């Protein structure tokens, strides 16, 4: 589903953020990207739908990441940002969920129907007309997820989906992610979430992909986790 080959990216020449990343994610696989702050997890997610463009090659499904394919790739890859306040830029939850659908050229009835379904999926159907400012962080995260899900993407790229949530909010997100059928890349520090949701884990550090393996193997390798700042 996703094939990344020799991908490198730098915000400034002296500051490489991704170094020669090669990674394959199969359809339906849920892969966690773990690593210390500044490891390059978010930068890698932003490459997936072409918001940042590095050197190397990246394919999503049958599509090579290039200018001509950007609209199609952005429709396939739903990106959930770490801060829902950055992601939810509209003045009502419904408008925010409908935003991407309008760019897909759907009719108003389809937009309303898909938005309602996505909000229902994340348990937010009663709050469609609320302002994002009225929501708790957990509700904002779920609404932001709805704004991605309504576009019916094949791939979900999620940046710290459980960060800052209270235990109930975190549990809600974990349950939701377990139920979703999409291929997922989840950048997170939450190793419990990794254990419950993801079958594969990729460990990153200083822009490099250090290790890829099954969750059970990686999460039980305490030396590896400690070395890369995932255990104190």
């Amino acid at each position, binding site marked *: 589903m996703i094939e990344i080959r020799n991908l490198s990216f730098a915000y400034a020449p002296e500051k490489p953020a991704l170094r020669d990343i090669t990674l394959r994610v199969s359809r339906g696989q849920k892969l966690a990207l773990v690593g210390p702050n500044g490891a390059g997890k978010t930068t890698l997610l*932003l490459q997936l*739908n072409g*918001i940042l463009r590095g050197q190397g090659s990246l394919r999503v499904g049958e599509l090579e990441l290039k200018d001509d394919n950007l*609209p199609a790739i*952005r*429709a396939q*890859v*739903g*990106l959930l*940002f770490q*801060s829902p*306040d*950055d*992601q939810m*830029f*509209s*003045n*009502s939850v419904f*408008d925010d969920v*409908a*935003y*991407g659908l*309008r*760019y*897909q050229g759907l009719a*108003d009835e389809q937009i309303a129907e898909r938005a309602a379904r996505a909000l229902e999926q994340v348990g937010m159907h009663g709050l469609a007309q609320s*302002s*994002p*400012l*009225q*929501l*708790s*962080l957990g509700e*904002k995260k779920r609404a932001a997820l709805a*704004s*991605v899900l309504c*576009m019916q993407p094949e791939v979900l790229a999620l940046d710290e989906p459980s960060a800052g949530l209270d235990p109930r909010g975190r549990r809600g997100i974990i349950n939701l992610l377990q139920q979703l059928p999409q291929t997922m890349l989840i950048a997170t520090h939450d190793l419990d979430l990794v254990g419950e949701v993801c079958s594969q884990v990729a460990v990153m550090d200083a822009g490099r992909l250090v290790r890829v393996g099954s969750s059970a193997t990686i999460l039980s390798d305490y030396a590896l986790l400690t070395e890369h700042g995932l255990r104190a």
Partner: protein
Amino acid sequence: MTPGGRQPDVYLPGQSLLHRTDARVKAALLIACLLTLGLLPVRAWLMYLIMAGLTAIALLLAELPLVVLLRRALILELPLLLVLIPQIFLNGETGTAANESLRLLGWQLVFSPLALQKVLGILARSALSIQCAVLITATTRFEDLLGALHALGLPSMLMAILALMWRYLFVIMAEAQRMLQARLARSAGSSPPGLLWRARVTGGMLGALLLRSIQRSQRIFQAMQARGYNGRLILSRLDPLTNAQRLAVAAFAAGGAVLVLLARWMAVG
């Protein structure tokens, strides 16, 4: 305060006739109302009274707490009051026939009756204009109002800027509030540093706030791109106005025009 910021509560939910009226109709009526008030001659007292009566009826139709609506208008009117009221006295020149004097709390105040009339006229018009605007914003959701203004010709880019400004103004205010709290939490010493130092700290805070806002704007742009934004704004489509709605707007605008013409004819007569 919510984690994201203080909730803007300009819109007051309700089920009144005004709440249910299409936002485009309300925006058009408001524009007609503002034009009418702006074009009325200074001393058209009767017309002001008629407009005040219409505004009062609209206020009642909104079925909202009157005190809240009047207080909001008064807050907005206050700066104008502070600027205009001194004009009555600043224009007065002692010894000229056109001036009157008034004794108040032992002070001899000299004022110009002509300036007084002008100021009262401006105050009446501005108070009614502000009250109408307050009423419309209290009965219309901000995004509906923006959509209505766009339907009436507001450029879409300006509309997007206003929408984002409205969305993030409160987030930035909350961020500033948190920075102030953080400063306060570390300002417990018995000998506070000098004014220059504090000014430098405040400058640094403003700079940090600006940088954070710029970074946030970049992240928002990325979020928009991720969902298909390509530099072209796509707005929700609105149903066309019904004939009855068009007729209501036309009738109100025509009524306003009649009031203005009548007032100007009476002023000449």
